């Protein structure tokens, strides 16, 4: 540092700060302030303005809120395009993401005020509900990104994912050899344990981390009281090691699933929202009152 010319210092200092700054705190919560003030102002106006016969999407203020909301939704969904191009400065990707998060939260206020709290079983409320789903999944995404990566790291215990799989395969090879002397009914148990692909778990199993049909666990239970010769002892020990390794892999899968699931809602729901929004806008003007 001491060797660095002074004129470089400020540049590097800024860059270093930028590197360590979360998109949530970007630029001194610039977008939180903007979104907060905008939401408050729009909500205040909603209370002060008294349209006839009542607030809904069809009053002049309703159309204003609707236009702002629709514009925001389109802009927010463009993050998917924007994130593929990294730039610096005010409209850096980080700034964009920060604005995405806080303006997205402001959309709860804007979109809900636009409804005038008139909800029903129709395409208009579908659009509103999808909007809330997208926002809720986004909030979930941010919260799990704040908490889960450390848990994910702890669970790895200095192993890479490939190493976890390697370890399981090594156990499996030993198990296959060790099970050779077993009676057929017992070797079938081992075989079904070996045949069960740990990665065949469905989304729900991954998220819940519960595997009631785990063949390895079932084999351990069935071997608890049969055969006390060396071969059975070895198989029992190997099955125990296999289950421990499975547990680690499954915990890893669960944490990853919890970390990734929000995008499987956020992205398709965003696209569904754009479809419902289109249907909402077109239908309102198609059947105009």
């Amino acid at each position, binding site marked *: 540092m001491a060797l660095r010319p002074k004129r470089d210092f400020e540049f590097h200092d800024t860059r270093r700060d930028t590197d360590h700054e979360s998109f949530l705190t970007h630029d001194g919560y610039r977008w939180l302030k903007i979104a907060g003030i905008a939401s408050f102002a729009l909500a205040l106006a909603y209370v002060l303005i008294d349209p*006839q*016969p*009542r607030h*809904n*999407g*069809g009053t002049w203020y309703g159309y204003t809120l609707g236009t702002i909301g629709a514009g925001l939704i389109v802009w927010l969904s463009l993050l998917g395009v924007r994130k593929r191009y990294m730039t610096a400065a005010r409209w850096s990707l980080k700034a964009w993401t920060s604005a995405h998060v806080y303006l997205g939260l402001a959309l709860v206020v804007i979109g809900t005020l636009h409804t005038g709290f*008139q909800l*029903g079983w*129709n*395409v*208009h409320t*579908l659009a509103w509900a999808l909007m809330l789903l997208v926002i809720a999944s986004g909030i979930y995404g941010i919260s799990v990104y704040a908490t889960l990566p450390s848990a994910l790291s702890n669970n790895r215990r200095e192993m*890479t*994912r*490939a190493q976890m*799989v390697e370890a399981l*395969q090594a156990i499996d090879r030993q198990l*296959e*050899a060790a*099970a*050779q*002397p*077993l009676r*057929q009914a017992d070797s*079938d148990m*081992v*075989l079904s344990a070996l045949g069960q*692909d*740990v*990665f065949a*778990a*469905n*989304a729900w199993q991954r998220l819940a981390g519960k595997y009631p049909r785990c063949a390895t666990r079932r084999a351990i239970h069935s071997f608890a009281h049969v055969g006390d010769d060396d071969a059975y002892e070895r198989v029992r020990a190997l099955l125990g090691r296999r289950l421990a390794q499975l547990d680690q892999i499954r915990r*890893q*899968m669960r944490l*990853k*699933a919890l970390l*990734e*699931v929000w*995008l*499987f809602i956020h*992205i*398709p*729901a*965003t*696209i*569904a929202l*754009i*479809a*419902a929004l*289109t*249907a909402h806008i*077109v*239908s*309102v*003007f*198609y*059947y*105009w*009152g």
Partner: protein
Amino acid sequence: MTAYLIRTIDLTATGREIVRERSIETDALTIGRAAENDLHLADLAVEQHHAVIEPAQGGHLRAHALGTLGFAHDGRVVGEASFNSQEGAELGFGSYRLTFSQDSDGLVTITQRQEAAAEDTTGSGEGFALAHALPSKRAMSWALLSAILLAFLAVPIFSHLTRERVEPDYKADGQVTMDAAWSTGKLSLAHHGLEDNCEACHVDAFVAVRDETCLACHKEVQDHALVSRQNTGRGPLPIGEQMQWAVATTFGKEGPGACTTCHSEHEGATRMPPPAQAFCAECHSGMDARLTDTKLGNASDFGDDHPEFQAMIWTERGQREPHRVSLSKKPREFHGLAFPHDTHLDPMGGVARMAASLGPRWGYGEELVCKDCHVLERDGASFKPVEMEQACEGCHSLVYDKVGPTFRTLRHGDVAQMLADLRAMDRAPRAPVVSGRARPGQFAKGRLYFSDFGRPGGSLVAINRAMAKGGVCGDCHTPTTRDGKPDVVPVNLPQQFFVHANFDHEAHEEEKCSTCHAADKSKSSSDLLIPGIAICRDCHLGEDAKKAEVPSPCAMCHTYHPIPPGKPRKDHPKVHDATLPVRFAPEKCRMGDPTPC
């Protein structure tokens, strides 16, 4: 002993084959997972002692399973198989394939090969990702996008554009599919029948609901006033509203006077809410400055800006038509009847005693009360016309004679008939034709065949007395002469005092009559007992009034659309009835009959 050449083919990790050969001479070739078998197959799907192969007749080989598990013979799972090794065969045990062949010198060759296990995903780290267990985000997005656009946009639009145009029918279902999802809320109760018939109102795509569509059913609805006068009365709109209308008219809205401007639909399955006061105030606030010839006072809020009421009454004797007079001028009414309310309502007076003596049998209580004469209409809002026979005759009897147990009564409402009846009253005292001689027997005075042939001089006196003040007619009626004959002036009791507003008495049943009508203090029938605006304002103030017990928009009393003649309706004032001169002829005058009687 049969000789077998066992050729074992293993694959290295790189896919290279390692071939080992050994010879066995045995009668029974054993196959299984156990190491002591001739063919040792290290696969957990193979039993310890799975099968045995023995020579059979005709150079055949026979394989049969030892345990419960079978094996595959040329792809089919069997428990026993016999085959000619010269022709070749393949037996499958677990993941192992045994291929049999026989060369020219009779040596049976068995080629043992393990099939490669199916490629699993465990080799890479991909399996950890949730994407491994879910359809791709892109696929889900496309599916949802197409489903929503199809169901909520394409289907309704297509069926709307291709429908057959029919006259709107309140009871019929619509033809457009899936447009229920477009409804922003339930229709009002009056329009409930159109709930599943959106296109009845939303006729053309991207065109707002037009007046002509509403008028297709509401044929009787008339304009509030001439459209040119409405536009003058409204005056120029504020800039903000002008901008809104500029946008709205682009999408087919018709302008500030259109039906949908005041009547909003899809606000829930209730009665359609009355239009807000602001819609009326738009024109009626300060209207006299714009519509200079108007007779209407300015009104924008019942509490703050509303003129004193004007009653439609007769004020002069001989007046042919009623006219509207502001209550602020304290007008006196002339309806042709003498009726002091205070005398009739005095609980200590003679009328009260009379009512008590008639009693409940005749519908009276301890004293005379308002409802003894003023009976509510079935609609609860207004009153039936006061009928002399019902309301007055209980005390003010028109009986003029008694024959045996039967009373003879003058016919009310027909002066000529009354005169004729009195003239013909043959029991009236007359001068005898011949004086000084009584008629004999039954023909004598008071006997059955008595008859009086003298001039009815006494009757004429009675007639004169009847019409005079205090007489049977003149007690209540104002006497006059018409075409030289005695008569009474027409009775003009308005059925409705307010022409442009409706008052619902039933809605005020918690109140006493005397709260608004000072009848018990009224000594003269010329007192107009209609309350002024100040009394209403005790409870009613404008739509937004916070202090008022009942915040009251214009539509609480006023109706916007004129009612066609002869169509009195419960929720509208019977304005036209009040403009008709009501003469007292109850057998002719009935509510709802607009012809003058």
